């Protein structure tokens, strides 16, 4: 058992490191690691993964909060959508057959591989800020703010509230169903749909992930999906790994790491889909 825990810890350390280096988060790597690597039942794997998602995102959010770019109001408002979605996702997970969850997980993983492969186009997008359209709902919700750029402070106002809210609900459902942070989808909702500057979107998304994951983790805990012996090494491993990864982030942005990762994630995705179709999971 001590060996099992030690290997698990090492794997989680690696997953946290890679997750924070690539911005994918630990969740997408922990679930395949546990199910494919250790043969753990996918329900335990998802519960464990949620725990690691809360620990890394809260750890990261604590430093974002101080920077002051994130928009707490917009985050809080959108958390209504993500937490409701998360509960719905966790409820679906309780009733859905595990092989179906495995297939959905594989598809999301495949999508993550594509996203991680693309250049971060959003970073450029936020340079040419969208024209400010006044809208009543955003005014009422004070859903606007400023952020620092090279030419001083720039203003932004939240656009397309309905669309953003819908995509946020979907992000919540996926988070609850698969035990992932679904940070990428949250950023897409804010950056591409609601026209919030990329940097504000990424830090606000990270801030929201912990609350979203807590909403589904509550259901998983009550349903008995969260095992102490399994969760302990994973939580601590991913946390330490992500802290190390955050230190490396500034130095290494090499393309080769991204390519290798995209290939590994694609392989894991096919494995998850295959196992689901063959009903091995």
């Amino acid at each position, binding site marked *: 058992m*001590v060996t099992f825990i030690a290997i698990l810890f090492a794997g989680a350390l690696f997953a946290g490191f890679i997750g924070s280096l690539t911005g994918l988060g630990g969740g997408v790597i922990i679930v395949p690691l546990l199910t494919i690597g250790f043969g753990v039942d996918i329900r335990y794997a998802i519960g464990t993964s949620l725990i690691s998602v809360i620990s890394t995102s809260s*750890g990261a959010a*604590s430093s974002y909060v101080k920077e002051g770019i994130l928009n707490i109001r917009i985050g809080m408002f959108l958390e209504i959508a993500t*937490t409701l979605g998360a509960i719905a996702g966790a409820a679906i997970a309780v009733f859905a057959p595990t092989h179906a969850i495995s297939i959905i997980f594989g598809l999301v993983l495949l999508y993550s591989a594509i996203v991680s492969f693309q250049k971060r186009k959003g970073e450029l997008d936020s340079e040419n800020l969208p024209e400010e359209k006044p809208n009543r709902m955003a005014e009422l*919700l004070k859903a606007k703010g400023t952020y620092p750029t090279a030419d001083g402070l720039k203003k932004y106002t939240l656009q397309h509230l309905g669309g953003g809210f819908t995509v946020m609900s979907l992000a919540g459902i996926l988070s609850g169903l698969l035990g992932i942070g679904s940070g990428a989808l949250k950023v897409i909702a804010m950056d591409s749909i609601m026209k919030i500057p990329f940097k504000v979107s990424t830090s606000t998304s990270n801030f929201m992930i912990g609350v979203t994951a807590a909403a589904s983790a509550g259901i998983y*805990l009550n349903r008995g999906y*969260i095992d102490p012996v399994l969760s302990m090494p994973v939580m601590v491993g991913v946390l330490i790994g992500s802290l190390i990864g955050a230190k490396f982030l500034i130095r290494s942005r090499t393309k080769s790491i991204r390519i290798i990762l995209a290939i590994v994630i694609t392989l894991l995705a096919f494995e998850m889909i295959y196992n689901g179709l063959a009903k091995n999971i």
Partner: protein
Amino acid sequence: MRNIMGTLLRVGVFSAAFLAVSGGVLFFIQHPKEISDFTTFKGEPAKFRQVHLIVKEAFNLRGRDVIQLGLLLLIATPVARVIFSLIGFLIEKDWIYVAITAIVLIILSVSLFSNYLTF
């Protein structure tokens, strides 16, 4: 305000990790030879599922019970952040956001205490 929030999150995560590691050490001392099987799903017993039982059992200082309290503390950390925001909006008298934050808090409570509710 933001500084306190950042500290709150950090303290929550690291004390949860500390509890989990301490529980892990206790577990190894108390059950050095035990082998757990996770390949088939059995579901956890009530003492690892219900909030009040997790808190109660942890005082017996058995390894797994202490870890589970750490995990509960971790799940409670984002909830504490939301409660803290609620207080902040109350002080600012921002009633719309008091309402929005209260809704998020209710959703989180429903999830965390879903065992006590009958659907």
